[in-house]
């Protein structure tokens, strides 16, 4: 065999773009199957829980970018969900545009706030960054409890002073519970696809280099500031859209639901679900909403979830740092290899 033949064999001609495409295809396919199964089986209680599950998984996908890709701990993600929901309601009640417009506004404003919340990450990492972002989440909690959520009253603040609150109408094409669930699945599917595309292409590679070390990233030609900022903006955008979808689910939001503890909880469950595989976000969403719903359904105290989550987090940190999704992925590749051997 000549040298050139060897090279030709060593470098099989393939189009790498189509491989990325195939990997991306997993996202809409999985989401479609998940949506159809849930929509055909769930009663109204479970449908509502499933809707928040899916919406929240979008905010987890944002966290997974920051932690899984860049290695940055952000403990204020749920505050950004709150910002997105807040803006969506505000725009919706004030101008009555189509739901999609309010939703995009929520995503964009949350993206800017996320960018601002990301400023400490230019200097800090690890524990210090975690503390600073947790304090930001606490500050947000104070602001919303002092200011209140726009819960459907008149005026800029939108406070309903006992005069009855207006509900934010759902999108025109998805008014019913099942339709709205499918709508949320579709929007989330697109969001997860966008996140996964980032992971598999140029920004994802730059992010992993930054995680490896900023000097290494710079030496590879990465503009560290831009790529970090982009990660925070994207993560905030996804959180904001999640907030909008939550707002659309019941037509209003309770400001008390956006405390600092929720951000902490979201981060913990993102780890348990798995930040290195895209479906880890969906698993985290399920843990966050489906487990409490299950306990309520069984007549048990919802607070038990905190204990369960604590144990799950400990388990993940001790034995499975890539989370449940990582374990599923490892199992799948073992099965594939076993199947390959049998042939």
């Amino acid at each position, binding site marked *: 065999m000549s040298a050139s033949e060897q090279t030709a064999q060593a*470098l099989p001609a393939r189009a790498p773009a189509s491989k990325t495409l195939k990997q991306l295809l997993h996202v809409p396919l999985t989401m479609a199957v998940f949506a159809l199964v849930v929509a055909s089986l769930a009663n109204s209680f479970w449908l509502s829980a499933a809707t928040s599950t899916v919406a929240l998984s979008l905010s987890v996908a944002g966290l997974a970018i920051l932690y899984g890709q860049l290695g940055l701990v952000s403990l204020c993600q749920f505050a950004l969900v709150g910002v997105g929901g807040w803006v969506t309601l505000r725009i919706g009640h004030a101008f009555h545009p189509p739901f999609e417009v309010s939703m995009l506004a929520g995503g964009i404003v949350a993206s800017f706030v996320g960018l601002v919340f990301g400023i400490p990450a230019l200097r800090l990492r690890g524990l210090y960054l975690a503390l600073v972002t947790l304090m930001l989440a606490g500050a947000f909690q104070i602001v919303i409890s002092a200011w209140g959520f726009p819960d459907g009253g008149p005026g800029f603040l939108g406070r309903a002073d006992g005069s009855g609150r207006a509900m934010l109408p759902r999108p025109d094409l998805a008014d019913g519970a099942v339709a709205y669930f499918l709508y949320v699945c579709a929007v989330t599917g697109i969001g997860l696809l966008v996140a996964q595309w980032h992971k598999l292409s140029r920004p994802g*590679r730059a992010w*992993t280099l930054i995680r*490896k070390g900023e000097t290494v990233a710079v*030496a590879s*030609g990465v503009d560290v500031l831009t790529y970090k900022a982009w990660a925070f903006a994207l993560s905030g955008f996804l959180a904001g859209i999640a907030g909008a979808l939550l707002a659309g689910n019941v037509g209003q939001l309770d400001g008390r639901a956006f405390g600092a503890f929720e951000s902490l909880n979201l981060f913990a469950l993102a780890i348990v679900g798995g930040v*290195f595989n895209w479906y880890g976000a969906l698993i985290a969403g399920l843990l966050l909403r489906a487990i409490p719903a299950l306990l309520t359904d069984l007549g048990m105290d919802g607070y038990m979830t905190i204990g369960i989550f604590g144990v799950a987090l400990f388990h993940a940190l001790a034995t499975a740092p890539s989370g449940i999704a990582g374990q599923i992925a490892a199992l799948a590749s073992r099965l594939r290899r076993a199947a390959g051997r049998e042939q």
Partner: protein
Amino acid sequence: MIVIEDVMVQFGGVRPINGLTATLTAPVAGLIGPNGAGKTTLLNVLSGFVTPVRGNVMLGGQPLLAMTPLQRVRHGLRRSFQTEQVVEDLTVRGNLKAIADHVVAAPDRHEAIDEALTFVGLGALGDRLGQSLNLFERRLVELGKCIIGKPKLILLDEPAAGLTEEEGNTLRELILRVPAEFGAQVLVIDHDVELIRAMCKETIVLDYGKLLAIGPTGTVLAHPDVRRAYLGEL
């Protein structure tokens, strides 16, 4: 050609480089010196991660110190680090792509990556994850990253550290081919004097921030000061 003029680096009270003046012209030049001599610091000055308090550096007639580290990479400066820095959860190809993304125009990226893979002999491992590579394969990936995107100067910080003699020889053969095939000058730090002797036409010896000797490798290694300071001879 690298021209270093009166460069001084100061960290608090320490001067790891103290008034260094040297000109390196060989296609593959060596940089040696005892531990803590300031070798890595000099590489950091050249790549821009350490700013000297005084002095001047020219690369191919262009002043280097005025450029940011990123501008230097775009200008054709490449480096590897003393500890290998392959990204575990990217494939070999992904690791190469990660730099090609920023220094090669989009239509040529695929070809540049294939060329680098073939050059370092990792064509068959393109889809393997970084975490599954052994040290030798990781060092090859790092060399592969350095030759992507028309490099002008490649700085290698102990590229053969921890490798077996055979692996070191393979790496040496590859490094020797770089100037002719990719048009880049190479500056290599290594503790293995025999490797330096076999690879570098020209060598510079640092000793606690000072220039101890510079010139053709054979002459430099025979220099009594070098033998005393570096090879531990009396």
